[in-house]
């Protein structure tokens, strides 16, 4: 598919801030499954700082804005040609050992309920790939997709207890369960072409990646009960949502801020 993305993030500050610094993971990964035709990333009124590809293969750009400003806008526009790789992350160069993705984070602590769910799902699994599929299915079945009930700091354990959540919660739950079963797992962030209307979504998308020996990293999207295909664009990864965040930033002297995100992913006719 040829997917066109428009992603605008706007921060509004209640009182003008003295400046802001941002670390952006907002450039499509280099994989066999996606080829970037064009990509524009800009912080309005900002100065571009260092940029580099990190050990996990993500392209990171640093930006700073001098104040006073009362609004900050991060603008992304681009076109990516995607191919269905059945979820397998192929041709992606990275230096981080998969075993670095076995450690727990606050958001992905496996409590008794997650451990039990993982153990039950794992019962009778034939190998890593089957196990990962079973875990992903279990998450889909136990956490219903429902926006608005969870928030950014909700943990995997809390989401399972609630039985509801959004893609971030599904990914966290799957990561926690996979790690508990000894499979390295991580959080992937990106975009999803959801429907032909191209209507703006309220947020970007996220899913989990699980390491299976012999195959490598494989994406699982329990929120959509599938593995990422050519409707997905991958931006980057991390131990959890915070670590993989497309935007990490600090505004100097910010009291309160509000956030507005507009994402539109369209498919071009081929």
């Amino acid at each position, binding site marked *: 598919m040829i997917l066109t993305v428009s992603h605008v993030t706007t921060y509004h500050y209640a009182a003008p801030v003295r400046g802001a610094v941002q*670390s952006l993971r907002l450039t499509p990964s280099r994989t066999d499954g996606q080829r970037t035709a064009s990509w524009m990333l800009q912080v309005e009124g900002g100065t571009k*700082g*260092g940029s580099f*590809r990190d050990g996990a293969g993500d392209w990171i750009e640093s930006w700073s804005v001098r104040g006073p400003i009362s609004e900050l806008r991060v603008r992304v526009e681009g076109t990516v040609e995607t191919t269905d790789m059945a979820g397998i992350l192929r041709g992606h160069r990275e230096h981080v*050992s998969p075993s670095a993705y076995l450690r727990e984070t606050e958001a992905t602590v496996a409590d008794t309920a997650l451990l039990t769910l993982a153990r039950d799902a794992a019962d009778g699994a034939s190998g890593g790939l089957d196990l990962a599929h079973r875990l992903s299915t279990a998450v889909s079945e136990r956490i219903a997709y429902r926006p608005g009930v969870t928030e950014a700091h909700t943990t995997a354990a809390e989401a399972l207890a609630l039985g509801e959540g959004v893609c971030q919660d599904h990914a966290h739950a799957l990561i926690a369960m996979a790690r508990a079963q000894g499979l390295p797992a991580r959080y992937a962030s990106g975009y999803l072409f959801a429907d032909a209307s191209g209507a703006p979504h309220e947020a970007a998308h996220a899913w989990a990646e699980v390491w299976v020996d012999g195959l490598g990293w494989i994406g699982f999207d329990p929120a959509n009960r599938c593995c990422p295909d050519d409707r997905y664009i991958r931006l980057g990864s991390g131990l959890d949502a915070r670590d993989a965040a497309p935007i990490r930033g600090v505004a100097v002297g910010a009291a309160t801020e509000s956030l507005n995100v507009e994402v539109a992913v369209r498919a071009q006719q081929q």
Partner: protein
Amino acid sequence: MAVSYFNEMFDGGRVRAPYARLEDWVAAMPPEFRTMKQEEAEALFRRIGITFAVYGEGGDPDRLIPFDMFPRVFTQSEWRRLEKGIKQRARALNAFLVDVYGRGEIVKAGRIPQHLVYGNEAYEKAVAGFTPPKGVYSHIVGIDIVRTGPDDFYVLEDNCRTPSGVSYMLENREIMMRMFPTLFRENRIEPIDSYSEVLRRTLASVAPKKCDHEPTVVILTPGHFNSAYYEHSFLADLMGVELVEAIDLFVEAGFVWMRTTEGPRKVDVIYRRIDDAFLDPLCFRPDSMLGVPGLMDVYRSGGVTIASAPGAGVADDKAVYTFVPEMVRFYLGEEPILQNVPTWQCGRSEDLKYVLDHLPELVVKEVHGSGGYGMLVGPKASKEQIEAFRDKLASDPAGYIAQPTLALSTTPTFVEEGVAPRHVDLRPYCLVGEQIELVPGGLTRVALTEGSLVVNSSQGGGVKDTWVLAE
């Protein structure tokens, strides 16, 4: 239990050569004079304000660490061997760090378990694939060494992050020279006052490639409330560099800048005395108010050098320690000159069994502990203390290591009744940049309590001037 300890001054009834002149010095010292000098030393230490807890082990920050006037002495040949061993170890530790953040050959070769490296809390995924300038992660390596015999030295632990205490090494010498100038005329003692210049040169030598001028070096401190603040400002003064807090720095256009009265000035090398977690809220702890937002992006894109490099801590973990001799063999193809203390990893079931069967003979330490807290010294412990440790080991075996109780050497020390042997250790500070350098000396800590083997200042330890005699 009758254990014989190596006395560094007396070999049987004979005085060992390096201490020969000190024997006369002590013999000629009247008790009143000694008391007067001891008070003078204390007054000097108070005046310069050096009262911080050595090695950041907590305790009362305003408490003066006892200074013992009796120097600890090494001969030139003893020191040469130590120096070779220390430098060898510092090279191996840095090679290990470059490797585990790069290709991970030592793990692939099966010479160290994967989980000890990549599962280590101190392993920073964020710097994987990045090699710092000159391939140096740990620029100041503090290696804690104990002696058990004339030629027997053991490494207790490595400190690859920001080892503290070097200001004591320098101040102890300064004060000894001021109080006993004749001693320094009678003995030919290698000077150590070049330390600050060597440190500055070392830091300047690892400036990023993008730096095309004389590098600007700064020391980054958490602030005056930190227990080692004295040392931070002391070193900044000696090196003639700025002492800054995070608030004094900002990031723009791919570089780090320092606010000055003449406007922003680019910073090339940051000798940081704050932990990784607090360096940059955009990379590590988002709630950190101590850090410089965006610093890690500048670092990883080659705009600034951070010393020690973020992630260096994975080399000085107590569980990784066991494998340092293996690192020496693997990376340098040499046999380790300094020995490791045999260590049992309680996380391994066969080791745990041995440890539980031999608790009264062993020293048990927390893997992530420091400062002499939370450790068991078997031969000195009560039955209750030993039983309490048995429970701790059962509930979290991987959190502990055990070592044989070492017969730490003693050196003569001034005590209430006169002069008596007390146990000591040694921390030299090895500097790693374009070159590896070591000033002839280090910090000697002394357990002032009779019979005590714990030299930590929080447990009643003191410090001494450490001499290396010129040939």
